[in-house]
């Protein structure tokens, strides 16, 4: 028995090693090439392949929806994913590795910024082409990117600063409403907010102002939570911030000017994919800069031992304040984008369920880690979309998954890791 058990596992590890070896010198650039080829391939042969496999149409979200609705189509959905995504990506990535390594080295030697821009450009191209096949994909992608922003900003408070803040949906709501009121009252003839004040063509250029305004209002309101947070820690802050979330929700519900509990609609369509993508990139870049600087690491010092931080000249008050307002600002910006993606907001959206979702993303992805937050936000968004046909059972499976992560990796999937862009974009030659 034992011999029988051992052999396959040994073979498996050897196979795994060989696969790892095979792909160890593939840089990010060639993965992006592969992704680009795969999505272009889908454009041209997606219909034929899905018809040949007996699928009703191109699976919108990697076939999860089809698989859950019609279990008989599971093999064909998997085959579709393999043929259209996995196979081309792996083959192209491996084949282009030599070229991509050379290119990555060239780009990096000229300037790091250029290299980053090329990578992001390729990523955006792949996402754009992938999402162009259905509006559903565009929506999910936008929501996933916004989730990345919210998760990262919550990670600043709950991870790096080590407080347990529940007020993020409140900040999002403020950002969403402020940005919406700004754009709707200025550029749209609206039932509640009156006729447009400025020509609609100015709108897209003023949109960043709307978002920043929303972020600033959130940050100012965050003072309400931040000031008591200097006196209390742990449970008390959690309760204060939870109270804040409900205050914001009730406040909006009782403001008839913005539609009360019925919500506010009619936001102009400014949040297209590239706007959301750009804002997400800026958010990740700024937050990553912050948490990697000594000023940002001071948050971790305050969390781990405030007395020692004080004794080592760290201004603990300023550190806490900055972290809290900073996080609230980004939650507000994300809220503004969220409102313009859905083009409708109501206060009910920003409630305890939203909080649970964001917290799940932070703790699933990993505390104190930018890359963890990105992974957490993307995977939970995709998962909750994929499990949508299960309806209420979705809220059994996702928490269950969270419990499993907490048991096996108590701090999350990728916790306490620094996100060094250099490691991602550098060429990977065999040593």
């Amino acid at each position, binding site marked *: 028995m034992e011999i029988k058990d051992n052999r396959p596992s040994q073979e498996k590890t050897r196979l795994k090693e060989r696969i790892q070896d095979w792909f160890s010198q593939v840089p990010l650039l060639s993965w992006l090439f592969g992704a680009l080829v795969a999505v272009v391939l889908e454009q041209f042969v997606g219909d034929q392949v899905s018809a040949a496999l007996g699928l009703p149409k191109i699976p919108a979200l990697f076939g999860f929806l089809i698989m859950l609705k019609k279990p008989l189509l599971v093999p064909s959905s998997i085959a579709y994913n393999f043929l259209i995504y996995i196979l081309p990506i792996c083959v192209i990535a491996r084949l282009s590795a030599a070229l991509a390594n050379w290119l990555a080295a060239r780009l990096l030697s000229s300037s790091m910024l250029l290299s980053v821009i090329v990578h992001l450009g390729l990523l955006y191209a792949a996402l754009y082409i992938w999402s162009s096949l259905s509006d559903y994909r565009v929506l999910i992608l936008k929501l996933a990117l916004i989730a990345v922003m919210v998760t990262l900003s919550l990670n600043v408070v709950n991870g790096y600063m080590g407080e347990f803040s529940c007020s993020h949906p409140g900040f999002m709501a403020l950002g969403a409403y402020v940005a919406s009121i700004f754009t709707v009252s200025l550029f749209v003839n609206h039932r509640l907010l009156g006729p447009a004040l400025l020509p609609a063509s100015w709108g897209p250029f003023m949109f960043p102002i709307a978002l920043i305004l929303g972020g600033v209002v959130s940050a100012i309101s965050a003072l309400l939570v931040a000031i008591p947070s200097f006196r209390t820690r742990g449970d008390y802050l959690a309760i204060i911030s939870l109270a804040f979330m409900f205050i914001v929700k009730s406040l909006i519900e009782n403001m008839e000017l913005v539609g009360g509990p019925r919500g506010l609609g009619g936001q102009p369509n400014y949040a297209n994919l590239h706007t959301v993508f750009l804002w997400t990139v800026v958010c990740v870049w*700024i937050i990553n*800069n*912050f948490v990697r*600087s*000594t*000023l*940002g*690491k*001071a948050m*971790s*010092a305050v969390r*781990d*031992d405030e*007395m*020692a*931080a*004080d*004794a*080592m*000249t*760290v*201004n*603990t008050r300023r550190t806490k304040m*900055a972290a809290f307002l*900073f996080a609230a600002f980004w939650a507000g910006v994300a809220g503004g984008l969220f409102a313009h993606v859905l083009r409708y907001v109501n206060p009910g959206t920003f409630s305890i369920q939203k909080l649970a979702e964001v917290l799940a993303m932070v703790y699933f992805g990993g505390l*104190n880690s930018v890359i963890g937050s990105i992974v957490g936000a993307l995977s939970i968004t995709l998962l909750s979309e994929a499990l949508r046909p299960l309806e209420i059972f979705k809220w059994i499976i996702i928490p269950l998954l969270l419990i499993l992560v907490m048991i096996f990796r108590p701090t999350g999937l990728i916790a*306490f890791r620094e996100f060094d862009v250099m490691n991602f974009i550098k060429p990977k030659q065999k040593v």
Partner: protein
Amino acid sequence: MSLLRIDNMTHYFGGLRAVHNYNLDIEPGQIRGLIGPNGAGKTTIFNLITGIYTPTEGQIILDGKNIVGLKPHEIASMGLGRTFQNMQLWRHMTVLEQVKMARYSKLNYGLVGAFLGTAKRNKEEEEATEIAYKFMKMLGVDQFADQIVLNLPYGAQRRVEMARALSMEPKILFLDEPTAGMNPEELVQIMRIIRQIHEKLGLAIFVIEHRMKVVMELCEKIQTLVFGEVIAEGTPAEIQNNPQVIDAYLGKEAVA
């Protein structure tokens, strides 16, 4: 002029008088010691001077300025570095990050610099790293730079804490029981290191110690504290032979 002068400092915790009429005068470059039995109030005196508590009465003058009522980080940035009795290192940070953190008040790039990663920030961070490495090398912990501090042996953790305090470039260094929990080998090493940094940097050092051997060998002048009051002050030899000190440590001999 004295570097640190304390006049008639008294502190109450509620009705409990923890420190009574404490006076101290440290010249630049001096090594001073504070000894006393458990619970005498030694660490309370450190905490009072470093601003964690505010004294009920009295004044503390650091480098010509009264520091009573200032916040701990303000006092620290005026040139007062310290270590803790139970080593308060930050659990999740690497050695380099710990030592660099003490440069916090010397960084001028501000939050905007931190957010945008400006050239000024990169330059200042590099300078901070250089200074951190200088002190890590001095204390022999530079080979651990990228390790999480909790993975280091005990003695090395002690040295990391000292490197952290030194990289503030303080004028005076407070050491709260630097040899607590050390074996004889580590003890000899840390004493050599303390003497070395004193010679190289010429800073004033104020040590709390439990072990007589350490204070006796290191310090020029020693105070003995019992129940919050200084009962004896003098050179190591004077202290060693002071009958009051012997009583405090060993108890009175029963009259035969």
